[in-house]
């Protein structure tokens, strides 16, 4: 009986990536951009500039030529001076999601978690009428898989379907994927990078390119528990899952301390690179439940509101 119920409950799930409860909660959440980099097209995302939305922003002195309709007559009556009432300008914001689908992301639960976070962020963007586009870097020799910009609730199912169908196992490094993304993408907004950032390339250069393109960086490093806390001992031959390259190490137990130093250093470096460009950085373990990330960690870090 319970199995039947479970089966029926499963069938009702909107997507295999996130349960319906989570989707419901996500629909009421919103990505919290710091720089408010928006397109000039009117949208629902409040830009930093003054505008004609209904949301009050500030007062300023009246200047000749100002639209008389925005004079606050109540204040004029009390102070006998004209003040112009200002409103926030709601513009459209691009939400670009880049998923690293290289082989390194296949380790542990990393790639699935990336897809879950992408689904969540994409949903938040769609439900807030942002222009959500998705790039999946797979093979270096091919262009990234592309989910064209779309907005609105109607695009939810297409987004989830796209995410459910993508597979990892590529060989394209994340820096290459960013460059490929920028070749196609136009528009300001935020870029959510979901990768382990284990690349031989220059990630700082890629971040510069993103910043120059008017994209605020939301970098999420996803590492598996085995990468965070490897249990290696003795003499080993390590094989790179992406390139197939090998590296012989001896007394692996002795090297773990140095490994942790370098992993920590990479984390700090990525964080600094993001902060320099007014972006955000978060390092996650693929062992953490996605709900904890979305509804707790993202809130605490100010990624969503």
């Amino acid at each position: 009986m319970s199995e039947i119920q479970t089966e029926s409950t499963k069938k009702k799930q909107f997507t295999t990536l996130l349960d319906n409860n989570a989707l419901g909660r996500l629909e009421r959440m919103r990505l919290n951009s710091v720089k408010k980099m928006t397109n000039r097209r009117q949208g629902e995302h409040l830009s930093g500039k003054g505008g004609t939305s209904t949301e009050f922003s500030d007062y300023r002195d009246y200047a000749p030529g100002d639209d008389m309709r925005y004079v606050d007559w109540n204040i004029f009556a009390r102070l006998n001076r004209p003040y112009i009432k200002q409103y926030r300008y709601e513009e459209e914001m691009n939400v670009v999601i880049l998923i690293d689908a290289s082989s390194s992301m296949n380790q542990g639960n990393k790639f699935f978690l990336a897809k879950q976070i992408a689904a969540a962020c994409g949903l938040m963007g769609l439900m807030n009428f942002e222009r959500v586009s998705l790039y999946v870097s797979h093979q270096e020799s091919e262009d990234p898989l592309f989910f064209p910009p779309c907005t609105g609730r109607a695009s939810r199912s297409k987004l989830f379907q796209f995410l459910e169908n993508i597979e990892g196992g590529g060989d394209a490094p994340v820096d290459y994927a960013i460059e490929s993304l920028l070749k196609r993408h136009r528009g300001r907004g935020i870029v959510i990078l979901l990768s382990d950032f284990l690349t031989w390339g220059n990630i700082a250069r890629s971040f510069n390119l993103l910043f120059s393109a008017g994209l605020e960086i939301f970098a999420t490093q996803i590492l598996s528990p085995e990468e965070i806390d490897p249990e290696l001992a003795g003499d080993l031959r390590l094989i790179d899952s992406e390139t197939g390259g090998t590296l012989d190490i001896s007394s692996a137990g002795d090297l773990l301390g140095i490994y942790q130093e370098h992993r920590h250093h990479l984390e700090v470096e990525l964080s600094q690179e993001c902060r320099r460009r007014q972006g955000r950085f978060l390092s996650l373990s693929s062992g953490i439940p996605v709900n904890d990330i979305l509804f707790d960690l993202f809130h605490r870090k100010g990624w969503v509101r």
Partner: protein
Amino acid sequence: MSWLNFSTLANAWLFLLALPLILFYFLKLRRPHKEVSSLVLWQQVMDDQRVNSPFQKFKKNLLLLLQLLLLCSLILASMQPFIQASSEQEDSLPILIDCSASMGSIDSSGKSRLDVAKDELKDFINKLLPGQRISLISFHSTARRLTEFTDNKRVLLKAVDSLETVDVPGKLEDALRLCEAMSRVTTIKTVYLLSDGNLPNKTDFELPFSINYQKLPTASFNIGITECNARRANEEGWDLFIRVEGNSDVPVSAKVEIWNGLGKVAEDTVLVSKELPQRVNFRLNVDIEASFQVKLISDGKDSLEVDNYASIKIPKIRKLQVFVSEDLTGFRHALNGISGLVFHSEKNEADHPPEFDLLFTDKTSDDKYPSKIRFNIGLVPEDLKSTLNIETGDSGVEIIDWLRNSTLLQHVNLGEVISTDVPTTAEGSGSETYEEAGYEIFAHSTTGPVLLGKRDNSQLNYYLLFHTDRSTFPYRVGFPVLVNNLVQIAMQEASLTEVHGEKTGALVLNKLIPGVEYIVSGPNGFSQTIKKEEDSSSPIISALKAGEYRIKSDSDETKIIGVSLLNSHETLLKTVESIQFSELSVDVAKEKIKKDQPTWKYFAFFGFLFLIVEWWYFQRRPGRRLAT
């Protein structure tokens, strides 16, 4: 001390085992494959490690290094390494162990000198190196080889355990002669002497080897009886003299008790110090044979127990039994003036005692009469007949020299004695011929000896080599003096004037019936069966322990002889720092016996240590990680 040496150097070949070890190590080094998401971090780790760790290559093969160290340690241990104590290793080393009475003296810790010596010996034996053999020789008044040259530690340790002190003074000669005999078949460079130093400071021996004289620490204070004599006081009693000596600087009081079979007879208290030995006199009114035991009870410490007891047997007071041949009227006249004598001659054989105390004869036929002292007049000993001949000359012979300080010739002037009997030594013979035959020349003329003496076991024989009837001797003043001296000697030999406490060592068993088997039992389970043969001298047993020796037979009553140490040198625990030998003197070694130090156990320990480290290194958990 020199650097490390190896007893089994051939085992160095085992170092070749390192080659297969290295080979197998690298063959074994087929690394397990491990797929990681990316080598980015690991490559950085390796680059960093190469820069910061110059001993990376060393660390990479740490396991191999540990295995090589383990192998080396085990091989070195199997090579029997040792630190050589001296420049030359003694392959065959005799060790002389003093087992004399003084070695039984205990120190403040309650350990005897022999116990200390045993400890040192056991330590030495336990550190014996392969190829090194030792022979243990115990010595006291004589020497006994306990073991052949051997490296069998079990045999050696068993021999050491069997060592025990005997109650006799220590003498070194026999032990050294034993070593000399051993050196004829085995090369001996050095002999170790382990003693408390209570030895004679002079030893008549030419050393063919060097002696390492190891002197044990001396014991503390000791007090003991060093003399026990009795002298006849009158017809009914004896004076008993006890000499008590001690080595304390301050006077120590002690009680001297005299016991017989019925109980305590007398006692006295003495104060004894090193500078103040005491002589105690007791009057014993006994006219029968009686044994007395002397006990010394010290009020202070006393490190040697054996010298606190002495025993003396007082003989029955009787007259001297003198046999004078019928023809020797001159001697009979001379003897008549001396009281306390009973005369016998060939005539009244029925009244003869079993043994005479003194016998004067000029006939060989009187040899059938046993006597303690036999004075032969005009008779040549059988064994000297080829050397000595008594000729009759007209001019006679004059005595030119004699031993004036001997007991026999004390106050005897032989200067004007002329005899027509001329004792003449055969050509080619000299005084050494007599000495070799065991004779002592008391007087001699220009042609040869005129008075000889020889002790055959318990019998003392004197030979006057001219007949008094054919000389002027009976008419000289010296004649009765000589006879009187003989009587005095006979009195002493018969223990009628003076008796001494029997000392440990050789014990002569007098008055045994020939042909009868006796069982002699003594202290420490001593038991020996002896039988005196007809016409043989009195048997001698080796009484090495102080105490009572019981002589028992089926036909004769049990006799008891008390034997005591009675040795001042042993009691005073005198030690010598240097022993003078014939050509050189040997001082006490300044250093203790240097023992070669086997070090295999250290290498074995290091091997074990390397094994533990290797095990830990192989089995350890990954090191601590930084917090993420």
